[in-house]
Every structure is written in C-alpha cells, then in structure tokens.
C-alpha cells in the first residue's frame, strides 16, 4: 500500500514539478537554495499526500503546500541576498525574442519582483500563473476584496521600484 502511495505521489510530482520549480525561482536566488527549498516542499507535499483526497486537482493542492512551505515553513539560509546575486541561474530572458528595450524592462521586472516581501511574492506568483482573484483569495485564505486591494498595492510598489 505504501509503495503504491509512493509511486502515485512521485509520478504526480514528476508531472507537475514545474509549479514547485517556479515557486523556488520566485523565493530563492541561487541554485543551492532552489534545491533546498524544492527538497523541503517535496517533503511537505509527501507528508500531506495521504490526506489528499483528490477532491481538488493535484496541481491546485500543490500551490497551497508549496507556497506555505516557502512563506512559513522554510528557514532561509543565512547567506545574504543582494540584487547582485541574480546571475545566470535566475530567470533567463531569451534575447532573440525581444528587442533591447523590452528585454531590459523584463530584467528590471524580475529584479523588482525579487525585492517584494514573502506575501507579495505569493500574490505575484499566482497572478503570473493566470489565477483569478477568486482563486488567489482561496489559495491564500483571504477575502477576494483583500486579494484585489493587495494586488493593486503590489502593482504600485513594483512601479515605484521600477521608477524611483
């Protein structure tokens, strides 16, 4: 029985691992921390898996546990995080697809997102994942109005970071 559970879990996670990687990208700045957080999220997902009843989609359920781990459970490593640490491991923007101006703008945007606090990062992440405000509110456990107001604030904050 346990083997079966292990197998179904690993298969599910293997297929949906992108979600976890994307959470790691938002919350960490180097490969080592990325792997560290991925590891911890995997353990938390596995521990919660027996209670996963399939009444929601596996991916929806993954968003919650992954964000919970990143925001609350994961203890950040002591290494200082500076904007200069954003190296090639980070978001890769394909040069051939954009003109210089757009590319520059995207780079700035990703750097700005990294400067947001834990909660704001979660909101931006869900927004980028094309979630509706209703879904964002449900995932985070706040009201839809609060989600909207918070998201607007994040947008203003991002604008400020980009145009100081």
């Amino acid at each position, binding site marked *: 029985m346990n083997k079966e559970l292990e197998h179904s*879990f690993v298969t599910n*996670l293997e297929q949906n*691992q992108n979600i976890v990687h*994307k959470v790691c990208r938002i919350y960490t700045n180097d490969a080592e921390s990325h792997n560290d957080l991925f590891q911890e999220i995997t353990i938390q997902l596995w521990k919660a898996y027996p209670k996963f009843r399939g009444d929601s989609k596996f991916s929806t359920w993954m968003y919650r546990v992954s964000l919970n781990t990143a925001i*609350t459970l994961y203890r950040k490593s002591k290494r200082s995080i500076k904007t200069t640490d954003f190296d090639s491991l980070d978001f890769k923007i394909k040069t051939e697809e954009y003109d210089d101006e757009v590319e520059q703008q995207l780079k700035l*945007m990703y750097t700005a997102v990294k400067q947001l606090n834990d909660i704001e990062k979660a909101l931006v992440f869900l927004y*980028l994942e094309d979630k509706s405000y209703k879904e964002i509110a449900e*995932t*985070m*456990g706040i009201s839809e109005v609060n989600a909207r107001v918070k998201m607007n604030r994040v947008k203003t904050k991002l604008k400020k970071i980009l145009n100081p």
Partner: protein
Amino acid sequence: MDELELLKKDWKKQEEGLPKLSYDQIYRMILKKSSSMIKWIFIISIVEFILWVSIDIIIRLSGKYEEIEVLGLEGFSLVSTILSYSILLYFIVRFYQNYRNIQTTDSPAVLMKNILNTRRTVKQYVWVNISFLALTTLIIIIYMVFYTDVYTQQSTDEHIPIYLIITTSVIVLAIFIGLLALLYRVIYGILTRRLKKNYKELQKLEV
C-alpha cells in the same frame, strides 16, 4: 499595468528553462528528513516544558521544600505542587491540540494562525509559571515575616535591619524574574519574527 502583463507573457516561456528532475531524484527526496520551522517549534516547546519541570525537580532535590515544610507550610507546599502540575498538564494538552491543528494543506493564513497559536500556548505557560513562581515566593516571604522568626533571627545574628533583608529578597526576586522575562522575549522574538510579520501583512485590511 503593462509591465506586469509583459511579465506574465514571459513567465510562460520561463518554463522551458526550468530544471527537470527524474522519478528517482524525486523519490530520493521523499526519504529525507524535513527541517521545517514546525519541527523546530515542536522541539523548542518540548524543551521549554522539560526545563520548567526540571527547575521544580531541582528545587525539590535541593531540599528547599523540606525547609518550607519545617516552617509549617506543609499544606501550602502540597497545594502549590498540585496546582503547578495541573497547570503543566493543562498546557501540555492545549499545546498538543494546537500542534495537531497545524496542517500544511490549510491556506497560508490559517496555517500561520495555527502555528502562532501553538507558540502562544507555550508562551502563556511560561508567563503563568513565572507569575506562579513570583507569587509563591512572595507568599513564603510574607509568611516568614509575620508568622516565623527566621528573618528576626537573621537580623539579630547578622546585625542587619529586618526591612533590609526583606527588601533585598524582593529585589533579588524581581531581578531574577526580569532577566527570565527578557531572555524569553528574545528567544520568542527570534523564533516567530518572520512568521508574525507575514501574518500581519496577510491580514492587513481583513476585518
């Protein structure tokens, strides 16, 4: 906001550059141990319970309780012992209930609230204990002043005025409790600072 929309478009393209872990790599991960904050909170809380029980045991072994009993406070000693262990039992049960409520499948808001509740239980236990300690010591001092001649005896023996002995006892007690409280605030602060900040951030605007 145009920039965020632009980012959203690029976000999808980012998927191509993401690492791909194999079945075996993921399988090896589930065999490892977690190092999450919940685990640390559990360990530290248990240590705190053990610490307070050990203080009680040390006081017992050092024979302080017998001294109190000699002074005619047997009844008081018995009542305070029963009371302090009932307090311990009550808080351990509450701690356990709160701890069991912590579920990573809850929303971040609920999860953070449950973790903070669990910590609050231990914090309350420590404060109740500090107050209990202060109160019993004060009662013993008052009893010794009015119903025994311990202080009077000491005063005559060492040629120190009685009020000075009493004041010193109270000051020593106050300093001890003050230090304990300070130490506790520091430990508690470090442990939950980030959690509290995030919880507040999330709850802003919520009625």
